[in-house]
């Protein structure tokens, strides 16, 4: 399969599209002038006044839907990353065993040789 990719052409096309988008934005701003006032710039949160720190989104909640969709993964694999060194060393021993059995089976059962 041939490697088909012309980066200069694609980059030129991307820059051109970006420029067209920017021109559209400028034209739309010329049509409708922004009229900022202090009230508009205030963050509306049900009448409460918030500090800048409180407006920061919680990083844990950023992809919470993903966490919900693949909950079993995060419960088992994510939960297994406990930081316990003994457990981690066991993972390596298990990995070695699996590798040995795989290589052995490939040679004995499948007959793959040097």
């Amino acid at each position, binding site marked *: 399969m041939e490697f088909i990719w012309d*980066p200069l052409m*694609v980059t030129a096309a991307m820059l051109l599209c970006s420029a067209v988008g920017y021109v559209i934005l400028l034209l739309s701003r010329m049509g409708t002038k922004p009229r900022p006032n202090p009230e508009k710039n205030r963050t509306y949160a049900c009448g409460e006044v918030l500090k*800048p720190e409180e407006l920061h989104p919680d990083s844990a909640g950023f*992809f919470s839907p993903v966490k919900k969709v693949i909950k079993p993964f*995060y419960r088992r694999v994510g939960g297994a990353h406990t930081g316990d*060194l003994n457990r981690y060393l066991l993972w390596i021993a298990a990995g070695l065993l699996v590798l040995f059995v795989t290589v052995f089976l490939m040679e004995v059962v499948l007959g793959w040789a040097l």
Partner: protein
Amino acid sequence: MIPHSPILAIVLPLLGGFLSPVIGILERKHGWRRATGIFALIVMGVVCVVVGSMVTDVWAGQFIIYELGGWSPPWGINLAVDALGAQMALMIAGLGILVVLYSLSYMRDETGLGQFYALLLIVIAGMMGTVLTGDMFNFYVFLEIMSVGSYALVAFRRTPEGIEGGIKYLFIGSIGTTSILISIAMLYGLVGSLNIADIGAKLTLYSGNVPPALTLAFALFVTGVMVKVAMVPFHTWLPDALTGAPTVVSALLAGPAAVVGIYWVARLPYLPFGMPVGVILVSLGLLSMVVGVLMALVQRDFKRMLAYHVISQKGYMVLGIGLGTFGSVLGAQGGLFHLLNHSTYKCLLFMCAGAVLLQANSQKFDELGGLGKKMPVTAAMFLVGSLAISGIPPMNGFVSKYCIYLSGLELGQGWITAIAVVVSALTLASFLKAFSSVFLGQLPGRLEGVREAPRPMLISMAIMAAVCVAIGLLPAIGFNIVGPAQAAAENSVGYITHVFGENYLAAGGMMP
């Protein structure tokens, strides 16, 4: 080529490492600011020139054999530089000098810089040795030199996180290197040689009748290499080590140190064992890509997130090299190309994280925000790195990932390509979160006084970012490096012939 280049590439950083504490003492005594760092920078500059002269000859078609002490292999130790070793040496030297340049500002307020630069240069000497040597035991010695220096560097600041990360890296890394040592001992027992070319030639005699001891030696060697590469489930040292280490060390471990592990992954299917390892590489690569990116997605610590992405991106490399063993040249080249790209953009991303940590004094997403206004250059560099790691055109990451996607399709395994594309999309999602959390949104009041990173750090980051864009726009630069490297990795007969001469294999691995 500069005379004795192969050995100079190893000895210069090693000697520099031994001299660094002396320079450190003079720095303190005479008040010479940054003297040790500048000394390390000069050493790395000379190493770059030496490696550059060697690489030019290799790209011109030479295979460099350097016999230590004038002893011919297999009795003496030799350094063997083919196009694969040349690519790796070039990357170690190039990334190494940028890491040292970055450290000039990043480590400016630290004490014990003599010891720091001693360890840094010794680690680089170890890396050079592992990719240039033609001897298995020599490889083990260099690997240990690199590893022991790295353990100490991770714990350099003696913070609780650094010490914990260093101890975990020490225990798990030692299991890996011990596996390799036992494997080498078993190989020596089986074939009576430690020379890589000699072992490769002699193992062909076992064709069709592989003893169980060789299978065990192979499994142990693969385990040791996979611990160093941090493939799942051997990856557990990496997130803690990279999170707890000073960021300049994280960049060193994520960039140049990744080169060493992947070099051996690329060699593994052909020399010295030459066993069919493709299924194992593809399986571990896919597993690491998926687990790494899903774990990265939910991290709340900047550096820990980057650490999980190291695992995921190395999965791409191992996958590409694994696909290469099934006959896909594009896969093998994609894997090696991704190593070249990953080392640059991951170094860049860690450097950006370090700049944020240095200026804002935090690496927690929930304590940062709005820094794009205060650190616009760092934000722009981080954006370039984020687009590159996510495989967005026209950045360099796209080119290598595209090769791997095409390789999966070429072999009729569209599901592998589908997984690789989905992992890239999740990588982008993860970096959107990082960019948004750190550089966009409201600036917390306590970060009002934050300023842009110091100039030496920005220079290092700018060079890395320029490389990301340049290779993306002109991928031929990368293909001219990885093409010969991939051909050299697969040409085990050529490697043996260059070391021992034309008649060696025909004589059944006996000197004619």
